[in-house]
């Protein structure tokens, strides 16, 4: 007998849990054992829906497939609409709809198929890049350990720091891998390691370069971008992890990551404003580099103090402003 199509019952992650070959129309769907597709779902009616063929009239175009909703409380959710008993909907191959808690998809014989997707071969294709990224991270940690250690204390410091970073990275990636396993039935551990490593390196290197640039050029704003940069990269990182977990929800995840980024920025900037009445926590550029790296010119004491005189009107204006509600919080006695 000719196979007219396939009706698939989908799992949460989009994989096919069960399917029936369609060999004749109409096709009945429901909890009733006489149905062509029996759904063991308490939110599904015995005769929940039926798919039938509408033969084209003479010269009236191709045949059409129609979904009709039977006697049901919950109806059918399809194409963003709620269909109730008696409603009908035309279906195309590949359409998905939901009955109760069950998600169904129809594939028709002769419909054009999407091209074959290559395997997501992280471990092999970007294996080199992952190795490089991990080496770069370890090198960066070595640098940090070196500058932070006493002259003969590098190795003990490095072993400790390197171990901490590696364990932190592994735990972070493992947690994401577990989440991925839940949704995708595979771990993707190394992909998560790769994402976290790249994000960590980006933040470290970019913050360093910003501080260096701010010192060299004496442009204070550059030195204050570090916090914003961290929020951006962290949002991007979480977006990346989530995309591995739910690859088909790209659009939703972009909105989510964007929202999270906006929230992080608003809260950190807001907190700075609350505590210091300015958007950045540092009052001045706090990084010093070897003097040879400075390119901005230096002023004379006269020029400097002439510029400093501009503080007076700003301070006097501020002093006259009424103390706003949140300003009454004491300035934290920060001791860095």
């Amino acid at each position: 007998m000719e196979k007219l199509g396939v009706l698939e019952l989908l799992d949460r992650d989009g994989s096919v849990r069960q399917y029936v070959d369609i060999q004749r129309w109409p096709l009945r769907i429901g909890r009733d054992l006489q149905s062509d597709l029996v759904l063991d779902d308490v939110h599904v009616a015995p005769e929940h829906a039926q798919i039938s063929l509408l033969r084209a009239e003479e010269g009236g175009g191709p045949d059409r497939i129609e979904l009709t909703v039977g006697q049901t409380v919950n109806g059918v959710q399809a194409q963003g609409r709620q269909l109730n008993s008696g409603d009908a909907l035309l279906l195309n191959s590949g359409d998905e709809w939901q009955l109760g808690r069950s998600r169904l998809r129809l594939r028709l014989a002769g419909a054009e198929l999407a091209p074959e997707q290559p395997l997501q071969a992280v471990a092999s294709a970007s294996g080199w890049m992952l190795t490089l990224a991990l080496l770069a991270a370890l090198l960066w940690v070595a640098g940090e350990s070196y500058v932070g250690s006493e002259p003969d204390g590098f190795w003990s410091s490095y072993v400790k720091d390197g171990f901490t970073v590696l364990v932190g990275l592994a735990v972070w990636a493992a947690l994401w891998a577990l989440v991925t396993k839940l949704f995708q039935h595979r771990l993707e551990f190394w992909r998560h390691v790769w994402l976290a490593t790249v994000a960590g390196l980006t933040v470290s290197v970019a913050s360093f370069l910003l501080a260096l640039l701010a010192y060299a050029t004496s442009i204070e704003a550059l030195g204050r971008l570090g916090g914003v940069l961290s929020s951006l990269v962290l949002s991007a990182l979480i977006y990346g992890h989530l995309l591995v977990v739910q690859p088909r929800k790209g659009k939703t995840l972009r909105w989510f990551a964007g929202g999270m980024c906006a929230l992080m920025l608003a809260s950190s900037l807001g907190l700075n404003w609350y505590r210091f009445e300015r958007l950045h926590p540092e009052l001045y550029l706090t990084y010093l580099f070897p003097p040879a790296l400075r390119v901005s010119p230096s002023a004379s004491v006269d020029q400097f103090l002439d510029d400093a005189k501009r503080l007076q009107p700003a301070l006097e204006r501020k002093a006259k402003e009424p103390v706003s509600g949140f300003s009454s919080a004491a300035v934290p006695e920060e001791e860095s």
Partner: protein
Amino acid sequence: MDRMHIPFARGLKARFVAVVPLLAALWLVTGAAIAQPKPPLPVAAAASAAEPAAPVSLSAQRLYERSRAKLVQIRTLLKSQSSQASVGSGFLVSDDGLLMTNYHVISQVALQPERYRLVYTTADGKEGALELLAIDVVHDLALVRAKPTELATRGHLNFRPQSQPLNKGERIYSLGNPLDVGFALTEGNYNGLVERSFYPSIFFGGSLNPGMSGGPTLDEEGRVMGVNVATRRDGEQISFLVPSMYAEALLARGQKAAPIKTALYPEITRQLLAHQQVLVDRFIALPWRSAGHPHYQIPVPGEDFMRCWGSTSASETKGLDYERSDCQLEQTLFISGSQFTGGLTVRHETYEGAKLGLVRFTKLFGDSFRNERFGSGSLRDFTPPRCKEQFVTQGGLPLRVVLCMTAYRKLPGLFDLSVLVATQDQARAGAQGRLDARGLSFANAMRLSRHYLEGFAWKN
């Protein structure tokens, strides 16, 4: 109630506190909430040992008997509920009910007259209301008045004439009502003036306790030679008195004044502006001392009224050779329980990192530059700090300079200043300096900054 706590410790870096002798806490001796009352002194025994040869010498007992009628406890009450917000002492200086006390005893009334009022209690239990007539914030004195009829028959305490200076070691007697326990007399010695103090301050070798603030200290003849004001918490029996000449001056200036009904911020501002002018003029007139560095000229203030402490490389400096000097003007002025002003500190650190190498030195030098905080006190009293920072070349020496200031909200025209300097000429050695001054006019902040920055130079 924390008003008697530690004016000196505020606004200073926590790491200063670790340098023990530098930052001994000074307590104003007033207040209701008290930590640890000290055991009473053996007053009678000590008195009997004092100068048996002096023919007219009064025993402490007779001195107290003669003075107690002229002594009062001064309490600040919340108008709404009549419970006491702070307590101090005071004494009669005229026959018509004028009393002298400390400014910090009555500061709540001076700043918030709508919320607080003053009352006195005499040793024999009489009570009455007080009016505030005049204050001297710089010397921490205030003149108040009872209704003339109420204290009229008691007479008053006389001041010891300025022409008769005391000798070191003479017995003096401090009166007041410590900790609201009861009227008391404590005995001690006159130890001259506090060394390197900006204004004269009497070093009293005796105990003062919170609550005795504003009480008189008498000589053997029962004449007022000073007014109780503060004590050092890190020592034993190291207390301070305001010389009586300032009380006499305030009495002369304020006895005809009308009672004060509104908050005194404008008057306090005026007095503080006058004070900072004198301070900055005298400070700038002092030549800088040498820091003894082979390559840098670094400004170190003279010790005329500053106290300096030095320290050198400690084991935790990670191979960095390091020297440090901290100089401090110990003249902190009380404005309110939450606000102090008037300090001046100059500090520098020199670093030599040849043993460390370029990278590690850069890191440690930078960490030290970062480890600074600005702004002191509540945003209710101060604006957030604003800074100007730039590379500055002075005397052939390139410097990174950060100048930060905050403005006083309630004392318009006064500012706190901090100037942070790091040398920027060498990759493996350097110096950092910091000047902090509180309660300056903007013009004087600029003068002082210039004076400080011009103290730096490269030595050939």
